[in-house]
């Protein structure tokens, strides 16, 4: 079963089943720097994302393995980390490097898995979710870089992602024996919902189109009968709103964790000797 999961979402370019033009494009991507690829991936370029994954996969796997000390769990961790990275690459801030960022996601995923009970937790990985047809698609799902198959890509819009995540979540809550895991999963769902709730409908439409369906701003402008500049503004506003919301949620969770673990609530030292307001 673990082996099949590995195949389900590995982002490896599949040159064997694709045309020459794709192969050429991939070769071209092979020669790009990590910075350049990251920039492209941030803009929603899947080939660039795939290439970044190809370059980092082995290293990330051994990192996950050293964290979990279990080869199967390491596969799960890596897989979830790649999905998280794929969903969030758009908010990777400019000039950040992909490798260290992915390494952090892997680490967080590993810690999360270990907290949930490690290799023995009765939990089905995220990769088990189905396509809209309802058929388990582990084998049939197209490689994400195959543009012809985009229509059946389950990650093409926010609502569908939320639908899948929450259905999977309910399933796993029903199935799991571990109430903590169930609660964490539920919190994650609510977190994502709250995250996107900060956007207006129009911003959400534009954000989805740009980041999940990779429609160009020019096409979005045509479709929504607005200017390209407006679309760019909207994308950038949506992106910074989401970033702010992410920060807010992270801080909330952090403060909650501190409270739950009984850490001090406040501390105030005597004011510093220099720069008393009268000095300034």
């Amino acid at each position: 079963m673990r082996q099949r999961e590995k195949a389900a979402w590995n982002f490896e370019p599949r040159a064997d089943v694709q045309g020459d033009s794709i192969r050429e494009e991939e070769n071209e991507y092979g020669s790009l720097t990590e910075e350049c690829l990251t920039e492209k991936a941030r803009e929603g370029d899947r080939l660039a994302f795939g290439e970044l994954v190809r370059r980092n996969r082995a290293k990330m796997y051994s990192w996950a393995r050293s964290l979990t000390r279990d080869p199967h769990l390491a596969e799960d961790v890596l897989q979830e980390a790649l999905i998280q990275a794929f969903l969030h690459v758009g908010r990777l801030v400019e000039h950040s490097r992909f490798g260290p960022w992915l390494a952090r996601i892997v680490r967080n995923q590993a810690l999360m898995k270990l907290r949930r009970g490690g290799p023995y937790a009765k939990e089905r990985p995220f990769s088990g979710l189905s396509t809209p047809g309802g058929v388990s698609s582990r084998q049939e799902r197209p490689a994400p870089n195959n543009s012809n198959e985009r229509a059946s890509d389950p990650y093409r819009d926010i609502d569908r992602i939320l639908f899948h995540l929450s259905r999977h979540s309910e399933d796993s809550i029903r199935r799991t024996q571990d109430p903590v895991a169930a609660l964490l999963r539920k919190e994650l769902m609510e977190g994502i919902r709250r995250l996107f709730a900060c956007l207006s409908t129009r911003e959400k439409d534009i954000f989805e189109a740009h980041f999940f369906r990779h429609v160009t701003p020019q096409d979005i402008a045509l479709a929504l009968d607005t200017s390209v500049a407006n679309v760019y503004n909207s994308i950038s506003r949506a992106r910074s709103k989401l970033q702010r919301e992410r920060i807010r949620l992270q801080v909330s969770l952090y403060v909650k964790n501190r409270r739950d673990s009984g850490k001090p609530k406040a501390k105030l030292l005597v004011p510093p000797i220099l720069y008393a307001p009268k000095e300034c």
Partner: protein
Amino acid sequence: MGSRPDYTHRFTHTNVTDIGSMYSILQYTERKDLSLVEVAGYTANAFRIIIDRERVNVAGYSAYEWPLHHKEQFANLGFRTRYEGGPTEIPPTPEELERALEMVQESLDRGVPVLAWDLFVPEFGVIYGYDDASRTLRCRDITKDGELPYEKLGRGQVHELYAMAITGHDPVSKRDMLKGALELAVRHAHSQGYKRENSQFRNGLAGYDAWIEAMSCRNVDVYGNALHALYVYDQRLFATEFLKRIADEWDGDSAGDEQLRSLASQAGGRYDAVADELAELTLRFPFPTGGNPNDPEQAEAAIANLTTARAAEEQGVAKLEEMLKLLQK
């Protein structure tokens, strides 16, 4: 000191905010005995100068790798440190923010404030409290004392996160502190520290050349020029006083100690001459309005001040090198 202005209020204040913040933080540690003059001297901060060669822009004073330098400076006083972030020019990720908050709160729980950048303005300041209920940090910098929301750490005026916390102390002798400080000062005087590609910033003696070069082009930034006159003058006043106190107060009866006192006195004289020239600059280009540094007459007068200052500083650095050789024996 004569008619020179004293912006340091007899060495109880400094406009150079990393050193002011470090001095403030030391009050909560084993080394609260160190005076502001000693902190400025033993960190070698009093001997620094960084100038943008194109426009003497406002970024000069902060154009160095903060974590590296502050780590060295704290280490020279015997302190171990850890830090999050640096001069990255990008806002922190949520995870980076969380790590920084964790570090800050952990240090405050131990009773030691934290050095941080851009709390209310892009200067160094001190975080000295937190409250999880209101999700705010209690902060002070040179412009303000107040609350800063957790989310705002690293998202101030310039969007980059940097905080450094003291984690431990290993006592260091005065002799080792002086030796370490002289090493830092001499290195800063002679070697380019900010090695970013195409950096237009120059430090040490080359900093004066950069300043003169920018003045000659009549294209200096009025505000940045006045700010650096004020800051470097401030630093050289501290350098002079630090060396004077070494000359007056250094213990020991050996010939080496005697020689060290004499060299410190000579070096102090040279830095005093540097301060004389910089004092004129601060009067000519008062902070923050800045006067008319691109007026040909003003610029030529300033170039004369800077040329004299550079020559005096070069002699001062030579004396520091002699002191260092003596301590290395």
